[in-house]
C-alpha cells in the first residue's frame, strides 16, 4: 500500500517561495503526472518527495508514514532522472544491482532480481557493457531497470524522456505505460510535455508558479479546464483564447466582431462582464469537416478568409482570420486550400469555454 499525500507542502529558498503550500492525495498504484511550464515547481515538488530537497513547510506522507525528515534511502522510493544518472564506472549489471549491493542482499537474490529487471526491459545483451557504450534509449532503459530492481513503493520520474529524439520518445512512452501495468506501483511522473502527461497518467496535476491549477483525469483537464491557463496549456494545437465583453447576449471582441453568447453561460454572466472566450480547434472547424457528434445544437456559421494552412496528412490545421486574429481550426477529411480563400467556418458554441478575465477561472461550472 503506497499512497502519497502532500499537505500544505511549501518550499522556500531564502525569501523566495517556490512552492506555495500545495495539497495532493495520490492513490495506491495510481499514475500521476505533474505538468507545467519550466519553473512552475514540479521538479522541486518531486525532489521534495524523493528527499533530495528539504521541505520548508507542510507534510509528506508515503504509505501512511510521515517522511518529512527522512533521508532518501529510508523512503523506499526510486527515481529515474532526466540525465539518467547511470554510474559510468560500473557495468549495466552493476548499475542494476547497486541498490541491492548497498542493502547487503545475498548474491543469488541479487542475480535473480537483476535478471528479472533485465528481462522486463530487454537488457540481457547489454549487462556487461558500460553506460558509455549504450545509446540514449538503452541508457534510459537501464535507468528504469535500476529503479524497478529495488521494488519500491513509489516510482518518481523526472522528465525521463526529454533527452530522447521524437521517435524514441514515443516508443519509450509506450514502454513506461507497459512497465506500469506490470509492476503496479504508484508513479509520480514530472514532464513539461502535455502529450506525455495525457497519454500516460491516470490523473494529471497542472502546476503554475508553485500552485496547483487543476487536478483531474486527462479527459477532465481537456474537456473541462478549470482555468484559462489549463485551457491554454493542455491540448495541441492549443485552444483559441480571446478577450471579449458580454453585451446584449453576445460576446463582443476587441476588433468589433462578435459571437452569440453560448446558452450555458447566459445565467452566469451579466452585461459588461469582461471574459475570455475559448474554443478548441476541434470545435471551430470548416463546415462539414468534422466528425459529427450528433448533438450540435448551438452551431454558429460564418464565412472567413484563410490566412495559412498546415497539412498533416489525415487532417489540416487551418488558420482562419476572425476579429483581426488567426484562429486555428482542425479540418478533417481535408481539401486543398490556399491563403486568401474564403470558407464557411462553424463554431460549436455548446463546447465553448468562458473564463473570467479577472481571475482566469472557468465560468462553466
Amino acid at each position: 500500500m503506497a499512497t502519497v499525500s502532500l499537505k500544505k507542502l511549501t518550499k522556500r529558498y531564502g525569501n523566495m517561495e517556490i512552492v506555495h503550500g500545495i495539497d495532493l492525495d495520490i492513490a495506491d498504484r495510481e499514475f500521476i503526472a505533474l505538468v507545467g511550464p519550466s519553473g512552475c515547481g514540479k521538479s522541486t515538488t518531486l525532489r521534495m518527495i524523493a528527499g533530495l530537497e528539504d521541505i520548508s513547510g507542510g507534510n509528506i506522507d508515503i504509505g501512511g508514514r510521515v517522511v518529512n525528515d527522512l533521508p532518501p534511502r529510508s523512503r523506499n522510493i526510486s527515481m529515474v532522472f532526466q540525465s539518467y544518472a547511470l554510474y559510468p564506472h560500473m557495468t549495466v549489471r552493476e548499475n542494476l544491482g547497486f541498490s541491492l549491493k548497498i542493502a547487503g542482499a545475498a548474491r543469488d537474490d541479487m542475480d535473480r532480481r537483476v535478471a528479472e529487471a533485465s528481462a522486463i526491459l530487454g537488457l540481457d545483451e547489454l549487462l556487461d557493457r558500460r553506460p558509455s557504450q549504450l545509446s540514449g534509449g538503452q541508457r534510459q532503459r537501464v535507468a528504469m531497470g535500476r529503479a524497478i530492481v529495488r521494488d519500491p513503493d513509489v516510482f518518481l520520474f523526472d522528465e525521463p524522456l526529454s533527452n530522447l529524439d521524437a521517435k524514441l520518445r514515443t516508443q519509450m512512452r509506450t514502454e513506461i505505460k507497459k512497465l506500469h501495468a506490470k509492476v503496479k506501483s504508484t508513479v509520480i511522473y514530472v514532464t513539461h510535455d502535455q502529450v506525455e502527461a495525457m497519454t500516460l497518467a491516470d490523473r494529471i496535476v497542472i502546476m503554475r508558479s508553485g500552485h496547483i491549477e487543476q487536478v483531474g483525469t486527462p479527459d477532465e483537464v481537456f474537456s473541462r479546464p478549470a482555468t484559462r491557463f489549463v485551457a491554454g496549456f493542455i491540448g495541441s494545437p492549443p485552444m483559441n483564447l480571446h478577450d471579449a465583453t458580454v453585451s446584449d447576449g453576445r460576446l463582443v471582441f476587441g476588433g468589433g466582431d462578435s459571437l452569440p453568447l453560448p446558452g450555458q453561460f447566459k445565467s452566469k454572466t451579466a452585461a459588461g462582464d469582461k471574459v475570455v472566450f475559448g474554443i478548441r480547434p476541434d470545435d471551430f472547424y470548416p463546415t462539414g469537416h468534422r466528425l459529427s457528434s450528433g448533438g450540435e445544437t448551438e452551431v454558429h456559421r460564418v464565412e472567413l478568409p484563410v490566412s495559412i494552412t498546415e497539412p498533416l496528412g489525415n487532417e489540416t490545421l487551418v488558420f482562419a482570420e476572425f476579429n483581426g486574429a488567426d484562429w486555428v481550426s482542425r479540418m478533417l477529411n481535408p481539401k486543398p486550400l490556399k491563403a486568401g480563400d474564403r470558407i464557411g467556418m462553424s463554431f460549436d458554441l455548446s463546447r465553448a469555454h468562458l473564463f473570467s478575465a479577472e481571475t482566469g477561472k472557468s465560468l462553466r461550472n
Partner: protein
Amino acid sequence: MIDENASARLTRRALTFAHRVGLFLAMLVICLPGIWIVLSSLRPTVEIMAKPPVWIPQELSLDAYVAMFSGIGKGGIPVLDYFRNSLIISVTSTVIAVAIGMAGGYAFARYRFRGKSGMFLGLMLTRTVPGIAMSLPLFFVYARLGIIDTHFGMILAYVALNIPFTIWLIDGFFRQVPKDLAEAAQIDGCTRWQAFWQVEFPLARPGIASAAIFAFLTCWNEFALASQLTRSVNSKTLPVGLLDYTAEFTIDWRGMCALAVVMIIPALTLTYIVQKHLVGGLTSGAVKG
C-alpha cells in the same frame, strides 16, 4: 596537367615531415638538460667544465655513484638518510594535503555556504606569495616552537604549501562529476558518505591522482624552505643534500649530478605508476550525451 591529388598528397607529406622535425626539436630542448645531468654524472669534472664543451663523452664511469654510497670520509654523503627523510616528509605531507584537498574540494564543488568565493580566492592568493619570502618568518616561528630540523616541521610547511593547490584541482574534478549521480546513489540506499566513496570518489580519482603527483613532486623537489628549516641528517632532504657537494672553493659537479639522478629516478617511477590512473573521460556516459 598537374594532378591536383598528387600535389595535395605531396603537401600533406611535407607538412607531416615538418611537424615531426618541429616536435623533435621541441622535445630535444625539453630533454637536453636531463640528458646532460645523466651524462655529467658519468664524466670526469675536467670534461664537464671543458670549454668549448665536449659533446661526445670520451670517458664514462660510475665512480661518482660508488663514492656517493661509500660513506663519510671517502667522498660519500649520507644519501640514504636524506632519501629516507625526503620519502617520509613527501609521502606524509602528500597524503595529508590530498585528504584535506579532497574534503575541501568536495565542499567547494558541492555545498553552498557563506563566504565561499572569498575563501576560495583567499586560498588562491596564498599561492601568490613566493615560498622564499616566507622562509624567514617561518624560521623565526619554528625556532620559537623548537621544530626546526624536524620531520614534523617540514611536513607542516609542505602541507600548508600544497593544500590550496590540491583543493583547487580536486574541486575542478568534483565539479565534473554530475550531481545527479550522488543523488541517484542516495536514492539507491546510500548515505551521503557511501555515495561519496562508491560513486563520486571513483569518478574523481584521476583528479585526485594528479593532485597527489603534483603535491608529491613539490615536496620532493622543494629546496628554498628546506634549506632554511633543516640542519642535519635528522631532516635534511635530498635537494638540500646537493649542497654537500659544495665546498668553500670547489663544487663537485659530477657528484651533484649523480645525486640529482638518484633524486629523479623515484619521482619518475612514481609518476609513471600513477599516470595510469590519469585516464580522463571516465564520466562519459553518465548523463545523456
